[in-house]
């Protein structure tokens, strides 16, 4: 009986034991799974962000090479349509061979030249659907023609068709053409939105014709005095308003078209030692590259000087070993192709000076596809199409983290300006202003929040009466629950205008309050019958009274300061005397707003850490005759150092990642200026503002992801440092 009872108990206990064991295992397993999936999720985000950003740094490559046809004759110019369905070249007899790369077969479209007339030089202006050609012949004639392509989408396999259109704009000016009796030696042609420009020369005569594109009329402006009429190279700017000439002595002459008239705007050395052989404007018309007979390249950029614009040397481009024979500007960005007599081809990015691709690619003529994703190489014996992967040529470490001379800027600088008004805008992707902005916002936020939060935490945990601590702590915790949109909104729309109006008052209050406290504490202590402590006027009341007095003083002093010292307005005074510009939404506003968001985090964690210091240690110190403050300073703070440090670090991490407040309370101006009175753009806000406008997979899109990655690494690094230092502090002071 007894035995069986025992057995029953045993089995019941056994069942219970098994169930407990099961629950225990299950819980362990679930918790492990949860923790692991958090780590995994973070890792996945990291990998995803990294994968999107990575192509930025993969560089440019020339890919598959496809021989389209064996060329007939000497190719003078070549090209392709935007789908690369058709590849064409024009030979020296004036026949355009259009090869259908999709369906095979070819088509010959002849230019109306005389039977023995030969094409000697061609200028090309590419476009998405139409390539404009200016063809110069050995008889001194210039023919304008366009290769127009269109795509047949209705077919089972879409294909393209091309036609050759002739323009004879110069017919009206026919009489003038006779003045070049020999072959055309050089030719430049460009068509911008409102102006077109055609220049050619031969036998020491330079002829320039300009087109008013709105009226569709060509005219022949008079050449300014002193223009060398036998340049060794010439180029027309893509906007159709500029003509560059290179002379045999290496001089650059820049002619500007304005209202149909030509003026000489610059004459300066190109910076080449040998005779120039090629000249090209890049997209945007503000960069110019010249090549010479020794293979050197000179790059020039138009910058804003004190007396208007001037051209200065831009980043050095890698030189060739053989004479430069051809320079071709990329169709969409500052990519430049240079080819030398030895068959070497380099692709450069003019803004950064980086060499993107270097390859031996013999050919007589090179052209980019309209989308910049392929090259057409026309040689004497073949017409080839070469794939080009050049998605993010503008990115280099220097572009992201260094300073570059950008078009139109007075000096090299680190600039963030991702999009502009026009297609030929030069994107500027320096992350320095964003990193600087993030750090600046964080610094101002911490300057305001750390002292307030830590002193508050010390007061509440060590000095405040219980009822106050019980009220203040939850109140501050509620502060943390305030959505940052609301803080940013209030800061930007309410606080910023108020601060602008009351700047003197606020600044004088900030100065007066600590001074008043420093002054009042000794006075208070010497006053008979009063003492700092619970018996006299309560500390809290003392603080409130002092704050009130400080505010009143500031209120009285501020108008006086404004009137006497600052001539009516501090903001104006700052701008006139100190040259400091005051923006309404500035770093101070952000500091206050972001500080407001960070205070609860730092306060709560620091208060917990300070409150967790064992009472026994405090009592030990007090019993030794240490004052309350000495105890806090020498015992409580060291013991809580790890926690307090962690609190500040978590606050720092929050400030760095905070988006809405910096977005709404700053002007989002990407400046590199430490002044507290102007705004900034933080990395987080920049991502938020620009990601919606960034084309998927584009450079901006990837750069923003890269910024996110940096932000991620920032917070990761901060947390790691915090953990590391916290751990060593804990080792030194902890073990309680």
């Amino acid at each position, binding site marked *: 009986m007894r035995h069986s009872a025992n057995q029953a108990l045993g089995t019941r206990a056994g069942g219970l034991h098994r169930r407990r064991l099961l629950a225990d295992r299950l819980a362990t397993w679930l918790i492990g799974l949860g923790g692991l999936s958090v780590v995994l999720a973070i890792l996945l985000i990291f990998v995803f962000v990294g994968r999107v950003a990575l192509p930025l740094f993969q560089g440019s490559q020339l890919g598959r090479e496809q021989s389209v046809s064996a060329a007939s004759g000497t190719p003078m110019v070549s090209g392709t349509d935007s789908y690369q369905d058709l590849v064409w070249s024009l030979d020296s007899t004036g026949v355009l061979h259009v090869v259908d790369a999709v369906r095979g077969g070819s088509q010959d479209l002849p230019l109306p030249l005389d039977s023995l007339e030969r094409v000697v030089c061609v200028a090309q202006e590419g476009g998405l659907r139409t390539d404009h050609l200016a063809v110069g012949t050995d008889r001194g004639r210039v023919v304008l023609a366009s290769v127009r392509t269109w795509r047949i989408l209705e077919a089972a396999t879409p294909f393209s068709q091309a036609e050759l259109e002739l323009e004879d704009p110069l017919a009206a000016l026919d009489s003038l053409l006779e003045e070049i009796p020999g072959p055309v030696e050089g030719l430049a042609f460009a068509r911008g939105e409102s102006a077109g420009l055609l220049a050619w020369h031969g036998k020491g005569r330079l002829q320039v014709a300009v087109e008013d594109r709105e009226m569709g009329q060509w005219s022949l402006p008079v050449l300014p005095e002193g223009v060398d009429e036998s340049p060794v190279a010439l180029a027309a700017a893509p906007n159709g308003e500029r003509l560059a000439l290179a002379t045999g002595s290496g001089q650059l002459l820049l002619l500007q078209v304005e209202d149909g008239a030509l003026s000489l705007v610059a004459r300066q050395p190109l910076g080449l030692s040998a005779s120039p052989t090629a000249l090209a404007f890049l997209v945007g018309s503000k960069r110019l590259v010249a090549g010479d007979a020794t293979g050197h390249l000179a790059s020039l950029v138009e910058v804003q000087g004190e007396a208007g614009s001037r051209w200065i040397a831009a980043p050095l481009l890698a030189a060739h070993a053989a004479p430069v024979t051809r320079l071709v500007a990329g169709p969409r960005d500052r990519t430049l192709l240079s080819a030398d007599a030895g068959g070497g081809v380099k692709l450069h990015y003019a803004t950064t000076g980086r060499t993107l691709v270097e390859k031996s690619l013999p050919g007589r003529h090179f052209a980019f596809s309209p989308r910049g994703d392929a090259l057409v190489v026309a040689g004497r014996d073949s017409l080839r199409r070469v794939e080009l992967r050049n998605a993010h040529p503008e990115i280099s470490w220097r572009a992201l983290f260094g300073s570059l001379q950008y078009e139109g800027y007075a000096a090299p600088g680190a600039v963030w300006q991702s999009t502009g008004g026009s297609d030929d805008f030069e994107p500027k992707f320096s992350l320095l202003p964003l990193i600087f902005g993030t750090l600046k916002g964080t610094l101002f936020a911490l300057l305001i929040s750390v002292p307030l939060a830590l002193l508050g935490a010390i007061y509440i945990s060590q000095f405040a*009466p*219980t009822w106050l601590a019980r009220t203040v702590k939850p109140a501050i915790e509620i502060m943390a629950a305030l959505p940052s949109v609301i803080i940013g909104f209030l800061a930007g729309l309410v606080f910023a205008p108020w601060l602008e109006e009351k700047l003197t008052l606020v600044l004088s209050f900030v100065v007066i309050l600590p001074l008043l406290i420093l002054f009042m504490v000794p006075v208070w202590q010497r006053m008979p019958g009063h003492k700092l402590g619970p018996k006299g006027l309560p500390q809290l009341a003392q603080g409130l009274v002092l704050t009130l007095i400080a505010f009143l003083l500031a209120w009285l002093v501020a108008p006086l300061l404004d009137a006497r010292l600052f001539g009516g307005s501090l903001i104006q005074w700052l701008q006139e005397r100190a040259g400091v510009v005051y923006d309404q939404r500035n770093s101070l506003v952000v500091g206050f707003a972001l500080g407001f968001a960070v205070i609860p985090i730092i306060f709560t964690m620091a208060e917990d850490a300070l409150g967790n210091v*064992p009472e*026994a*240690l405090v*009592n*030990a*110190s*007090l*019993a*030794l*005759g*240490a*004052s309350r403050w*000495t105890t806090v300073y*020498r*015992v409580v703070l*060291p*013991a809580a150092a790890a926690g307090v440090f962690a609190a500040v670090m978590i606050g720092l991490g929050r400030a760095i990642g905070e988006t809405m407040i910096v977005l709404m309370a700053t002007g989002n101006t990407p400046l590199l200026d430490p002044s507290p009175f102007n705004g900034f753009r933080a990395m987080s806000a920049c991502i938020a503002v620009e990601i919606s406008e960034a084309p998927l997979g584009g450079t901006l899109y990837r750069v923003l992801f890269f910024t996110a990655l940096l932000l991620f690494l920032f917070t990761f690094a901060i947390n790691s440092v915090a953990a590391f230092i916290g751990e060593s502090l804990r080792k*030194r*002071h*902890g*073990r*309680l």
Partner: protein
Amino acid sequence: MLEMTKPEVTRRSDADETMETALDVQGVEVWYGPSRAVHGVSMQLPARRVTAFIGPSGCGKSTLLRCFNRMNELIPDCRVTGGIHIHGRDIHAPGTALEELRREVGMVFQKSNPFSKTIYDNVAYGPRVHGNKDRHALDGLVESCLKRVALWDEVKDRLKSSALDLSGGQQQRLCIARALAVDPRVLLMDEPASALDPRSTGRIEDLITELRDQYTIVIVTHNMQQAARVSDFTAFLYEGHLVEFNETQRLFTKPDHEQTNDYITGRFG
């Protein structure tokens, strides 16, 4: 009955030197909010003697002890009335610096509470707080204090290692050394050995015996044997009332009060 292990106690209390009063307690009452923890206690504690407070848990002996260095003021809602004079000075007089009072009246707590600092810094903490920054003087002071608590030989090679590495008994002796470092006249000990093993307890008791020549020691203990072993005088408190204050030998052998007799013979407690 209880055996008197320290014959000196008898000799010293029999000595005819005039006993100086170190602590003069007059009608002290302690209130925690509305409830009274100590009821009108009056007594004169002699200087350079060991006085033990005994009594059952909650009788107010610790509370009374904490009145002497005004540590009770740290407890919210705690109110102390009555007069306490230490060496003739009213500790509640306006203008009394708490720091000065507590320098003069040191305290050792029930649970050892060394700071998470080095052994050296623990002892030097008090002097430093009171403005002694002289490195050389501190070295000497630390050494003499550690010697006085018989800890010097055990720690002299690791003064710069953490005090938390010491054993419980060593930590408590360190806390006593720390209290001695500010050169107090009165040493309050709140059950200093209750958390220690018997061997460590013995060492603490020996220490108290050694220190009695220089300090007025007030020790709270729930251990009657301990009171009998180390103290010259004993006060028996019960439910906040001082029942009997007498020479230790007398209190444990021939108490004046029946209640005392009941307590020391174990009829309640």
